[in-house]
């Protein structure tokens, strides 16, 4: 268990380092283009050279990488070209907004998909099972940007129940959170429900379930006390891995609804070639993704006694 944890953390650190090298090479390999991006296309040759001199860009690339890495680890991400403030000043509040969105999505998605998955998996091949399976195929086939358009047309244009943008201009507004959450849940619950169903179906064929039924336990007790505990191990991993997916989903949803979150920031940074902001956003995104993978792996081992004690 402890060895596994160490292994996973080592993998995490190595991944982060490799990603940071790749990002650095991709974005900062040529100092000239960095200076052009920072100072704008109309800056003069002398201005650029002066800036490069001041910021140590005439050092060899590995020296630059390590000084960049050193600054990065201590939380100095440089200055955003677009927002004209230190990157950390824009990054953390935006990330906070995305956390709010993400928590809301999970609070709705997890209970919904688990219940549907368990109901479908309890009796494989039943009418309910087929209905839930087909519904989840359909909802997973509608990409987030399309369901955003469908739901906006329905709730904003025809019913006029909800606001069409989520800029939160007048402070936090729960109503503005409804559509983004709905779009993300709609796309993802089908997948988690199918995974839960598969896990439940597998558990239901186990001999100990048959034993429990044959010894006369009431059916709901068999499900709640015997089946669920084992059936929920796999969905735990799946749910943790959904955080990685959510990082992609929020980009689309935040862009569509003008929600001031991390995903919209990353997109804006990329479209404007705001290199220091791209670097910071990408590293944060990869960190979150790798960290949740680590938690999923370690958690799976912890929850599954057959692996834990072997």
């Amino acid at each position, binding site marked *: 268990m402890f060895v596994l944890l160490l292994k996973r953390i080592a993998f995490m650190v190595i991944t982060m380092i490799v990603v940071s090298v790749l990002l650095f090479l991709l974005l900062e390999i040529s100092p000239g283009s960095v200076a052009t991006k920072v100072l704008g296309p109309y800056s003069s040759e002398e201005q650029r050279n002066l800036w490069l001199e001041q910021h140590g860009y005439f050092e060899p690339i590995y020296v630059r990488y390590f000084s960049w890495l050193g600054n990065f680890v201590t939380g100095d991400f440089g200055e955003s070209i677009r927002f004209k403030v230190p990157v950390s000043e824009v990054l953390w509040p935006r990330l906070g907004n995305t956390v709010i969105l993400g928590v809301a999505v999970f609070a709705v998605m997890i209970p919904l998909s688990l219940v549907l998955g368990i109901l479908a998996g309890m009796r494989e091949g039943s009418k309910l099972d087929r209905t839930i399976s087909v519904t989840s*195929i*359909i909802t997973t086939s509608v990409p987030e940007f*399309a369901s955003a*358009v*469908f739901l906006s047309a329905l709730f904003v244009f025809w019913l006029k129940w909800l606001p069409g943008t989520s800029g939160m201009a007048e402070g936090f507004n729960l109503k503005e959170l409804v559509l983004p959450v709905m779009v993300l849940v709609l796309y993802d619950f089908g997948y988690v429900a199918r995974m839960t169903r598969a896990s439940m179906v597998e558990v239901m064929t186990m001999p100990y379930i048959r034993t429990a039924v044959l010894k006369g336990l009431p059916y709901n007790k068999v499900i709640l006390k015997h089946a669920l505990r084992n059936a929920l191990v796999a969905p735990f991993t799946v749910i943790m891995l959904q955080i990685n997916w959510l*990082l992609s989903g929020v980009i689309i949803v935040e862009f569509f609804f003008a929600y001031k979150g991390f995903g919209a920031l990353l997109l804006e940074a990329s479209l404007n070639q705001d290199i220091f902001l791209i670097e910071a956003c990408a590293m944060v995104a*990869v960190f979150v993704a790798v960290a949740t993978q680590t938690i999923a792996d370690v958690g799976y081992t912890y929850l599954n006694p057959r692996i834990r004690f072997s």
Partner: protein
Amino acid sequence: MRTLASFALLRESWVGMIGAGIIVFWILVAVFAQLISPFDPLATLQPFAKPGTTYAKGGIFLLGTDHIGRDILSRLIWGSRTVLVYAPLATFTAYVVGILMGLAAGYRRGWVDDVLSRISDIILSFPVLVLYIIIIATIGASGVNIIIAITFASAPGIMRIVRGLVLDLRNRDYVAAAQTRGESAWRIMLVEILPNARGPLIVDACLRMGYVIITIGVLGFLGLGLPPPDPDWGGMINETRQMAMAFPHMALFPCMAISSLILGFNLLADGLREISLRD
């Protein structure tokens, strides 16, 4: 031949049949775009026309027009060509790279496997859209670059599946027989092993095609797709989404088109999987 046979078996799965039907429908639309498209997809005729409006110079805008007056139905019809050319092309390139990586990793084992697997782990740990956005924003949006980005992001996943299948197949008798005959390693991988791994790969390819269509749509939607003015479903949604509150039809129909095509591939994959599990 067995591949054909499993497509013939598709008749037994109504889910798969519906999926295949949707895909065939869009392929026909793309092939006969010239014949069935009522207007020129690039011509600016009459802006903000609602669906069903009659055009003064003849014809009806069945699905309305967009903000600069182009007929939406015609753009949808021509846009099906874009997606049905780029999605299979990108999936195919990703598969070629992924299969070669997977065969090498699974058959050679050792350091080849270690290196390829670690590279895949790292690429797969990226949130996929973050990867696409950074790649496309850096190398620029064009058809070729979209294919490169999709190959880069999808090949590792394909490699993992192929590697797993190869690890299972490499110990079979017919592989040992080929080795005894002195066949070259690549011949064994491509002629002996690969054809026997095709079942799960075909199902995965259908699902992946769905994802690639989503990706192409998302990139267009985010403004990172194919450069205008050629009709592209994702791009159509991007251009008109600001007007979606007042004129929802402009973005609604491209969304329906793209969702139906993705659904087609997902249903087909489900049907094929159901059949492959049966025997």
